[in-house]
């Protein structure tokens, strides 16, 4: 069905809240949903899966982090990227602000493609951001998305694919690596990871802007089951009506 951007955003935020996500996560999900819809509408399905995943758990898991010489490691403890993506993006950015570049490996994380939306948010903060994950196929492949920050306005989004790395981190299908770096040197550093991959899609800034404007003008086509799931989850925050609440709750009663 076709929905407005505001409907998508509002419902994402409410569904995340109803699905037990931490306060504030829903607002960021609302933001990335529009970008995902503009970049690759198929990725909206991951939001559906992430919401189902989040709602099936008691609540966000206590994520832990550690450092190794090259990167920060975040253990999402089985959460969806829908739940831990904001946290991962923030941790990455705080390191990148300090050092000029940073790498973060997120382990035990589901719906990793949602990190692409967070890469767009990171790019809006002025960093180039790479998302890199391995997925099962025959033979296994490695997929990457690179949000190239323009420094102002909207980033470019490049996606690429290549053979899965040997001795990979992430062979478990639940690991995703994020890199962020500033400026031309930072981009060159990130691009080292890119070598050997074949570009599958490039969306430049003006195209992405045009798609966003189009979304504002004509709305977004949304899978029915995603819409239904979001409505179902957002309804969890609604309070059933009683005669008393109907009368008192909105002030029908005289003062």
């Amino acid at each position, binding site marked *: 069905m076709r929905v407005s951007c505001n409907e998508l955003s509002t419902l994402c935020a409410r569904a995340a809240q109803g699905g037990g996500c931490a306060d504030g996560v829903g607002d960021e999900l609302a933001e990335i949903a529009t970008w995902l819809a503009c970049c690759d509408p198929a990725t909206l399905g991951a939001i559906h899966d992430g919401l189902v995943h989040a709602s099936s758990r008691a609540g966000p898991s206590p994520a832990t982090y550690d450092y190794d010489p090259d990167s920060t490691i975040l253990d999402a403890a089985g959460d969806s990227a829908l739940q831990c993506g904001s946290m991962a993006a923030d941790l990455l950015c705080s390191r990148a602000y300090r050092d000029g570049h940073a790498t973060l490996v997120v382990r035990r994380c589901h719906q990793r493609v949602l990190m692409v939306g967070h890469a767009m948010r990171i790019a*809006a903060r002025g960093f180039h951001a790479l998302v890199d994950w391995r997925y099962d196929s025959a033979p296994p492949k490695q997929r990457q998305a690179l949000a190239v920050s323009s420094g102002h306005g909207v980033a470019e989004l490049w996606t690429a694919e290549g053979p899965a790395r040997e001795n990979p981190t992430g062979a478990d299908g639940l690991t995703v690596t994020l890199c962020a770096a500033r400026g031309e040197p930072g981009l060159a550093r990130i691009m080292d990871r890119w070598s050997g991959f074949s570009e599958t899609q490039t969306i430049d800034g003006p195209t992405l802007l045009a798609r966003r404007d189009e979304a504002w003008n004509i709305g977004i086509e949304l899978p029915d089951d995603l819409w239904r799931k979001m409505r179902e989850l957002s309804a969890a925050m609604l309070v059933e009506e009683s005669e008393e609440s109907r009368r008192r709750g909105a002030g029908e009663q005289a003062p």
Partner: protein
Amino acid sequence: MMAAGCGARQPQRPSARPAVAPRPASVAMQLERLGALHASRLSFARSLIRRMMKDRWQICCLRFDLDDHGYGTCVYRIRTPESTYSFVVFSQYLEDERRSDRVIADAWDCACALVEGELDDRRLHELQAQVPRQEAGRFGPDVLVLSRANRSMRNFQAVVDALAEGRQPQPRQLTEVGYLYRTTAVYGNGKFGIADYPKLRDRQDLGAPFAAQLFAVYLLRDFSIRQVEHIARRRAHETAVRLACPLRRYLGIGNSTGLGMAPFLITHPLLIAQWVLMRETAIARCLAQPATAACRQRLLELIDRAIQHSRETRVADDAQGKRNRLLAAELGAARAWLADANGDAGHWQDRCRLAEQRWSLETEEMLHTLILELYPEQVDELEMFMGIAEGIDLVPHMEAAELRRLIESSYAWALAIDFGRPQAEYFFWYKSAKKEEPRLGVRGEETGADRELPLDIGRRVQHCHETLVDFLTTCQDRASVAEFLLLHPEQRGIVRRVQNMAGTVMGEIRANLLHRDMLPMHLLRCKLSFFGATKFDPRSSRWVRITLFQGAPLVEDIDTPFADDWALPPAPDPQPSP
């Protein structure tokens, strides 16, 4: 023609002192003060009318297919320099017992939509199937605004009767209720599939905040007048008369608003802070002007008008009635004081200090509103800055200690709230499953506190501060906000809000919205005053009836001289000429 302000008529003397600073947030953002605001030159209804008159919008009723009872379809075409729009109204029979102002109603006297472009029969047919269903319908992005309205039971039939009998309704009756229809919801910005606001945002005609919604309301006012005249004519063709022009101008359009409007003020803090900042900037600019004899004379006229308007405002609520009487009395005192003032011009700032000391918030803010009328050249340009990009982002690399400092400096008001007292957390806000209507519940007495809406900014800030203080005692030096949130992800929303709001001049509305003594009415009035609402008529502490566009130019006034001086209209002469 735009009216020149006092400042434009008088030679400008350079001010002998620096410009007046806007009032601080600690004054301007107090909920009680926001609940005493009045519509002003900066209100969106005023801006819309200025734009419409300046650009000479062409508004034409293309189709008026109503039966003898006024039921049927009406279509307008609107041409602005930028675009063409249509406004469609579907009027239908409604049993009296189904007529309700609540959001949870499911039928109305009329339903309407503002649509992009011209309508062909196919599109009109589609709209006819959906628009009367309102929230239950589904719409496309060519629909810009969706609304519905109920007839005023006190006025509608009486006005039809009078016109059919060949006489004009008594203005006294229209002072009781200044409209024929009352809207009960006006939807924009993507609701139910209609156009997102960004689609309109860059337009000159309807790009200002809420301009499209208010324009739909304005057109409904025109429809309401045409409709009563039509019914009267059909009932008594020989004797029926048209409504006299002064009475037509005196008719506005009503609106009934409940708690549904309140969360908006909390969930759009940057926008509200911007609106208040622009109003305060306008006040500061005007208070820095010299109070010349001509300006004082003009202000006396405006005070007289405001006194009469206040006396002619009828409300059901005793407390509001007392406030209105006090306003009229205090304006009378202000008038006497102004008339007695000696010839020394001075600045308005000095004179208004007296208002702060002596008079109620309603009077103080009314005087500010009236002083804004004196200087359109100082005020009107600020309407361009009433919109704002609302996107906020977390600043993850901010040191946690810096976040603590931000809270302590910008949210001292929140930290000062004593949540240990039971009345401090008396209410909780929630959404009902019935049409998602926002409601207030009493904690411990009503169900739903486990699904509380996060509108309790003061409490959340306080909790965040406590958590942060604990964190800072154990964390590494220079730990970042990102690290704080790793341990306390539940603080994410409030941290992001604090980081962004602390950078604004006005900041948050300073109130504990859970407190037993909190009046949601203040929130409603604040927003409605920025819309341009007048004649606030609280029906309880949680919903209010207001009037919009009373005194505004009519559609037929477009392309005639315009003085932009229609606010606070007095009731017309009892026997106006047609």
